[in-house]
């Protein structure tokens, strides 16, 4: 009995061995690829680990930007205001140190890889006429596109968006 069984396995053994060998090679290859992938993912997630927290801090920076844009003339020269400006700049510098950079928008050609159109207004066709919210990159990757208003080709008339654009120009 014992011998019989051994013989049968020996006979069918070759294709089995071939299959096991093949599976083993595949498993090894899969594992090698998996290791490479994990290493890439790890490096990537280490580099971009701060993305979520930075995205949560950016609205605070936006609010500060807005606050300075609407700074009343009579407050502009107070030393208290200078202090707030320093805080604003410090927050920007802190983010820059983390690898955060601003995306250029105003006056640029609209580019959907870095800008998100939220409206259209009078102005040169395809040019950005207003930046509604600044966009940012982290280590070169867009983490938040700039929200922009794009010119629609009609001549810039004296419509209601005009004065706002001007003041934004001065602020930005």
């Amino acid at each position, binding site marked *: 009995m014992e011998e019989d069984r051994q013989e049968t396995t020996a006979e069918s053994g070759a294709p089995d061995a071939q*299959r*096991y060998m093949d*599976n083993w090679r*595949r*498993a090894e290859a*899969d*594992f090698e*690829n*998996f290791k490479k*992938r994990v290493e890439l993912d790890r490096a990537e997630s280490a580099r*971009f680990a701060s993305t979520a927290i930075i995205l949560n801090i950016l609205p605070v920076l936006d*609010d500060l930007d*807005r*606050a300075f*844009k*609407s700074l*009343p003339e009579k407050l502009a020269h107070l030393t208290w205001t200078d202090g707030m400006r320093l805080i604003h700049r410090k927050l920007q510098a802190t983010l820059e140190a983390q690898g955060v950079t601003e995306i250029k928008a105003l006056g640029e050609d*609209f580019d*959907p*890889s870095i*800008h*998100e*159109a*939220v*409206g*259209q207004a009078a102005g040169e*066709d*395809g040019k950005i006429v207003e930046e*509604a*919210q600044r966009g940012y990159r982290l280590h070169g*990757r*867009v983490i938040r*596109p700039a*929200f922009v208003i*794009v010119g*629609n080709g009609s001549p810039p008339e004296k419509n209601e968006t005009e004065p706002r654009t001007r003041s934004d120009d001065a602020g930005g």
Partner: protein
Amino acid sequence: MARTVGIDLGTTFSLVAAMQGGDPVIIPTSEGERLLPSVVAVSKTGERLVGWLAKRQGVTNPENTIYSIKRLMGRKFKDSTVQFDLKRLPYKITEAPNGDCRVVMGGKEYSPPEISAMILQKLKTDAEAYLGEKVTDAVITVPAYFNDSQRQATKDAGAIAGLNVIRIINEPTASSLAYGLDKKKEAIVAVYDLGGGTFDISVLEMGEGTFQVKSTSGDTHLGGDDFDQRITDWLCDEFKKQSGIDLRQDRMALQRVRDAAEKAKRELSTLQQTEISLPYITADASGPKHMNIMLSRPKMEQLVMELVDKSIGPCRQALQDAGLTPAQISEVLLVGGQTRTPLVQAKVAEFFAQEPKKTVNPDEAVALGAAIQGGVLKGEVREVLLLDVTPLTLGIETLGGVATSLIPRNTTIPTSKSQVFSTAADSQPSVEVHVIQGERPMAGDNKTLGRFVLDGILPAPRGMPQIEVAFDIDANGILSVSAKDKGTGREQKITITASSGLSKDEVEKMTRDAEAHAADDTKKKEEIEARNTADNLIYQAEKVMREHGDKVPADLKQQIEGKIAAVRSAMQGQDTAYIRRTVQDLTETMQKIGASVYQQQPGAPPPGGQAPPGTGAGGEGPGKGKPDEGTVEGEFREV
């Protein structure tokens, strides 16, 4: 080798997943996002854009930006749903000679499968870049209610994109696979899928690994976007009450409110209330205006209650069509991002009278399930190699009867692990290696697998010899344990075959015991640790006194001897806290040795100053003793 992917081709978003190391994973887009908007456009410069880029330029180019193409797949132009969508979609939809729909983009006509193909192509390209391999085959999901022509259209889209569509599967089936339900024998599954723009409920009957759709229902225009709209409306109303300004008239402000509403909704899935704070949201003659509104979870639930209720009607319908009662449903699965809202979960639980399952990321379940199906079809899920795991922790007994683990439970085998141990007493000639199995922290409470003695250790102070203990489990579960004196090279080993292991019932019992005794065991372990610390400290103290006793003033010497005796007597008792107190006391007193020895040096520097060179052995001893004491102290203060 060419890869197979699973694709969730959705109405608003699409995802792609692939099997990696036996598990399905979502592949991010080239922009680093896990979702790809199902949007295609031809820009004014004639460039074709897909996904995020197409979505971002939509406002400037609405007539050439195609979204929600899934709503037109395989449908006739005269279909009532097409006629309904026609009015809501900003791009042009025309009728093809055969009665199908066509959409116009960049002045050219495209069939819906051609548009879908552009989305699929982008997913394919991104997947290839991520995997570093060619992607040729795909499993694509469709709603369970899709008819033959809609399925054919989806298949055509795959072919146009250069994909060999090996199977079209139903979205609820894919979700069930992601939840691992195919491993069950028989079940009746309800899949509740509330996404961004559509709601589907499907009842499936599963048997022997196959899924059969019993009934489907839903609402093609109900989803998370409606929830956001309700919250946005409420915020605008509240702001108008406070300031008299209607933010709906200011597109920029409205955009900010909408984003904040969506964020608040997400936050309220975990928090009871959230603050919506939008400074400088607008301005009037009196100056800038800020929005600062609190939204509580009950308030939000009140706002969206009607929408959630709207989903229950179709659930009732689906059960009725399947001829089933809620009690006959064995599993309820939640899919789609909007099911994260606690109110949705509660309503579903109430209707089906059972807790729905929500362990798989609801945005990703469909794509993950499609990848699993692909893996099964392509034989990537191999049956030959069944990897086993160790059911219980394996380790050895160390000083004071503590169980020290070497291989934690659920480690995939074959595996090996080694760790260096040492002696507990001066001139200890041998060590006993007691191999144990179990989850309890004390060796005595675990199962003994074997023991052996390694002798011939050369006389040395405690802690000096290095004994390397190595565990190795082979693929058949056979455990070999070896101990090697790294100094002399002497080695002993033991092999424990799987037969001396435990039955499944025993494993379960031991795991249960460990849980039941967790609190007691921790206490016991702490006691042992306190004793070990005390034992170690006495050893250190006596050593210091032996070596430098002559430099220590008599009164201090007496103090220390008294404190050593106090620690010893505390160790006789069971009071862990008392042991720790005496240990701390002794540690603090010991520090005085250093101070007094250094002060005896001529011209001794003030504390913290640099020791002059040539203080010799006298200065070195206590200095060396100190870090040890410091460690001990730190250890029990932490506890």
